């Protein structure tokens, strides 16, 4: 079943056509990768999906319903979560608080109950804290849980960001270059996390990544963009062999 679909999306900034009639569809339960040269428009697609950019033209469908006009926070409530290319964590807060924020949409505490604390608010805090701790265990970041994220090393921040997105309990997870800045071992961990999230939590993953080793290995389908246009879409093996993709993106060398 198609869970997320983009139909003929156009987006421009001044004279630059960032997206030029892009269409793609993501099936429920798959790992879908978007690749393409720098400036091809990958992040822009994510921004359109999560509602930070509104396309000039075209439709974005989530579970068959158009979400073009929804504001970003509403889309999050529908089950769309993402990470960012330039880490966008809340730098002043601890890891736990960042993840607890991921739980925001699932919590109900308001200005009154929160201020009173005892009773409702505390119970809710504890319940969600348990969920968050589970994610912390899953991502193996126990030892940094009370550190301010701003002081963490780059790679760890990426992991925390994944955790925050996960805390939303999303149905579709958009990950923008999750492996950037990781060495082989950490890349492996991250890949494992993504696979686990996909398999065990039944989350559909849309992935932007430049590490071809990972992309070709873990994704079910890949879409390639260049200059805002889709130049190919298909199984990893097809993409790898596509001369257009090789010329624009992969280069001649073997992987």
């Amino acid at each position, binding site marked *: 079943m198609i869970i997320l679909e983009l139909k003929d999306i156009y987006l421009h900034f001044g004279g630059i056509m960032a997206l030029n009639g892009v269409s793609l569809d993501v099936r429920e339960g798959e790992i879908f990768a978007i690749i393409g040269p720098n400036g091809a428009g990958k992040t822009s697609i994510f921004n359109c999906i999560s509602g930070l950019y509104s396309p000039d033209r075209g439709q974005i469908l989530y579970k068959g319903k158009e979400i073009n006009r929804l504001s970003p926070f509403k889309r999050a409530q529908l089950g769309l979560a993402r990470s960012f290319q330039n880490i966008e964590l809340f730098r002043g807060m601890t890891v736990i608080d960042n993840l607890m924020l991921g739980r925001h949409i699932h919590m109900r505490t308001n200005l009154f109950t929160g201020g009173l604390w005892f009773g409702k608010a505390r119970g809710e805090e504890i319940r969600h804290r348990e969920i968050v701790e589970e994610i912390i265990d899953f991502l193996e970041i126990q030892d940094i849980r009370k550190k301010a994220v701003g002081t963490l*090393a780059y790679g760890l921040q990426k992991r925390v960001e994944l955790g925050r997105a996960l805390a939303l309990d999303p149905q579709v997870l958009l990950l923008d270059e999750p492996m950037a800045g990781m060495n082989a071992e950490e890349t*492996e961990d991250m890949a494992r996390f993504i696979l686990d999230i996909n398999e065990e939590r039944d989350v559909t993953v849309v992935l932007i990544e430049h590490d071809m080793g990972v992309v070709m290995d873990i994704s079910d389908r890949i879409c390639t963009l260049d200059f805002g246009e889709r130049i190919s879409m298909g199984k990893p093996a097809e993409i790898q062999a596509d001369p257009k993709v090789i010329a624009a993106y992969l280069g001649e*060398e073997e992987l």
Partner: protein
Amino acid sequence: MTEPATDTKKKQPILSLNNVEVIYDDVILVLKGMSLDVYEGQIVALLGANGAGKSTTLKAISGLLKGEEGEVTDGSITYMGQPIDAVDPEKRVSMGIFQVMEGRRVFDDLNVDENLYAGAHTRKSRSEVKRDMEMVFGYFPRLTERRHTLAGYLSGGEQQMLAIGRALMARPRLMLLDEPSLGLAPLLVKEIFEIINRINKEEGTTILLVEQNARVALSIADYGYIMENGKIVMDDPVDKLKENEDVKEFYLGLSKVGDRKSYRDVKHYRRRKRWIS
């Protein structure tokens, strides 16, 4: 520590860190006696896990720690035979040390051209700067069409190109590169490393390279250091390093037999091997 390669043995290192300790916020000890030598004309790679302290090392060298509540509390940093611990960061740039910071720190509100001009701040000759600018645009044609766009609007990869271009504009003697390949498309990664190699060979720029993409890094480096938890745990000429089993496994992503494996096959959570723990 093992001795550096024999051919450079007699020479004075252009940069040398001796037992450097760095503390953040007065309490967090990050570098715990870090030592490292870089010889003129070399490309030296510095590898290590997330949080090992690689970026911190570079910042200690360029003097940019101060802005982040960090402080070198012990040990010494020598550049061209002189201790530079007391030298202001901007002075270090005019002495020839230039750092490309992690995470594409471009000037958002300046356009691409102005960013490049800012990179050439310490240089006098306007005509040379102009020429180098054309060179940079030659390297990164993608930037040419975005010349008058504010850098903040560029895509991640474009910003990374700009950050590297800016470093080229400075024509440093010692370039500190913090993950130059971050977020770049594979094709471009290759190109960037070619460029790095070229300025090293042609201009004689010494390069200290922090890079997670160890395969590419080691392919152009002369000498490699591996750091963990604030210390150097291994250093060797690259050829030797590449043969090390641990390096192969953890940094090059090769299993014992030397071929690639699928991520789907990796079983859960192997215990990691660490040099120190």
